[in-house]
């Protein structure tokens, strides 16, 4: 077992955050992510960190803004309705170019919805969520090991690009236990000369702010930010490819949906159907190149989602609608079974005449 422990996905996020040097956590309880807060409540006081259960999600995200301004690694976590509440603060973080890690362990919506897993916050996450022109880097773990890995990567990306990274998980990955190893290599945290840490009388004041009343200045700020986003899209887009080399049918699926899809791909491959899987790991930036490349062999793409069809739009954009893209979905907290995905593959195979 080589140093592996069984842990819930939510707990793995919390432990990884602590290993990444995060010493400040602010949150408000909500199923199915409360284990993150519970873990932090237990650990932070023992390691000189801060755990604070705020009076609301909005208070928690603004505490994140405050700590991030001082250059410290900081995070918050919630589930779908709580993320909507935090969205104002996330927009402010973007406007002030502050790094932070935000976890959304999604549940069914809209409204209070339910507490079972969902992926229906894809649009909210990948388009920013709050007001204004901005993006978050959005990472989609598909295992407990990745909950840990992407949390650490998330802090690194947030610091490197001075923006929010969101871990877009779901109730299943958050609640399930799998073996996880914390044997990671850590990059040193970059210098943060912009942080408001006191001038010691040696430099000009640093100002962290998202208010720019001059439209000329605000326009430049937005354009510069989008130049940074373009660099990120070029450098950081990432996906896992599974049996795609000769695939005539491609499944697009992330997170828990990708695991169900993998079972179905294996079953269909056993029958000689040429099917493969592209699993986006970064949802923003969307791994467009992987989808462009699959067009060399692909005749149809099936987007498997726990939503009414959100990522499917990015798949269509990435492939410029050159092949049909169909949807295989369950919603409201339901998860498609491998049999349902397999049936979608069979139907696609008939359509393309394989």
């Amino acid at each position, binding site marked *: *077992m080589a140093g592996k422990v*069984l842990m819930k996905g939510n707990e793995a996020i919390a432990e990884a955050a602590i290993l990444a040097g995060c010493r400040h956590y602010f949150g408000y309880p909500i199923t*199915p992510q409360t284990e993150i807060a519970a873990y932090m409540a237990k650990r932070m006081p023992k390691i000189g960190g801060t755990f604070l259960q705020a009076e609301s999600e909005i208070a928690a995200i603004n505490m994140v803004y405050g700590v991030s301004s001082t250059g410290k690694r900081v995070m918050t976590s919630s589930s779908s309705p709580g993320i909507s509440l935090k969205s104002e603060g996330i927009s402010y973080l973007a406007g002030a170019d502050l790094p932070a890690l935000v976890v959304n362990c999604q549940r069914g919506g809209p409204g209070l919805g339910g507490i079972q897993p969902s992926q229906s916050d894809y649009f909210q996450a990948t388009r920013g969520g709050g007001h204004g022109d901005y993006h978050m880097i959005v990472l989609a773990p598909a295992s407990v090991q990745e909950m840990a890995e992407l949390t650490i990567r998330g802090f690194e990306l947030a610091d490197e690009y001075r923006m929010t990274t969101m871990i877009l998980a779901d109730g299943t990955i958050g609640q399930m*236990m*799998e073996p996880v190893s914390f044997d990671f290599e850590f990059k040193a945290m970059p210098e943060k000369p912009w942080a408001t840490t006191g001038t010691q009388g040696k430099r000009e004041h640093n100002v962290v702010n998202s208010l720019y009343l001059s439209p000329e200045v605000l326009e430049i700020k937005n354009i510069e930010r989008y130049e940074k986003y373009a660099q990120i899209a070029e450098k950081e887009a990432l996906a896992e490819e599974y049996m795609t080399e000769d695939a005539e049918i491609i499944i697009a699926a992330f997170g828990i949906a990708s695991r169900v899809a993998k079972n179905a791909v294996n079953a269909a491959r056993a029958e000689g159907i040429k099917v493969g899987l592209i699993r986006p790991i970064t949802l923003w930036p969307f791994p467009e190149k992987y989808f462009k490349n699959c067009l060399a062999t692909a005749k149809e793409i099936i987007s498997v989602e726990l939503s009414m069809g959100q990522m499917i739009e990015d798949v269509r954009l990435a492939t410029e609608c050159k092949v049909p893209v169909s949807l295989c979905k369950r919603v409201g907290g339901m998860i498609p079974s491998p049999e349902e995905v397999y049936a979608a593959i069979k139907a696609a195979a008939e359509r393309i005449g394989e």
Partner: protein
Amino acid sequence: MTREYLFAGFGGQGLLFSGKVLAYKGLIEEKNVSWLPSYGPEMRGGTANCSVIISDEPVGAPIISHPDVLVAMNLPSLDKFEAAVKPGGTILVDSSLIERKVARDDVSVYYVPATKIAGENGFSTLANMILMGKLLDVFGEYDVEMVHQALGKCVSARHADLLELNLKAMEIGRDYAE
């Protein structure tokens, strides 16, 4: 080889704990494992269940539609999941809580009055571990050393006394013959 287990019953019967012990045993044996609980309000006294997959291959979906093994600790769970068990699969029934017999004839069934036995031995909360002992024995996988190690991972050091009780409960289950 892949084996999928579903533990189902009332909240509070220790089904999630059983699953964790089994998953740890798999991990110690260097298998791939996943453990997925039902969560939410149903855990507070309603039906609770827990899916465990132990496999030589990487685990795909952690959700189980058709378990190889069902451990049923109340009637609603047996009613709900009996039909889902794979043909040739195994069902363990706590026969002190479930009066009816399993209707299917294409699965192996073991009836253990686990809750009654647990009460008689003075640890009424360990019926789950009696069933676990039986479960491991059914598959010829009751390895004392492994069981001890797996339990050690699941019982915190300050409850070390409970470790012995859990072990005893598992041994009673292992040795139980109908």
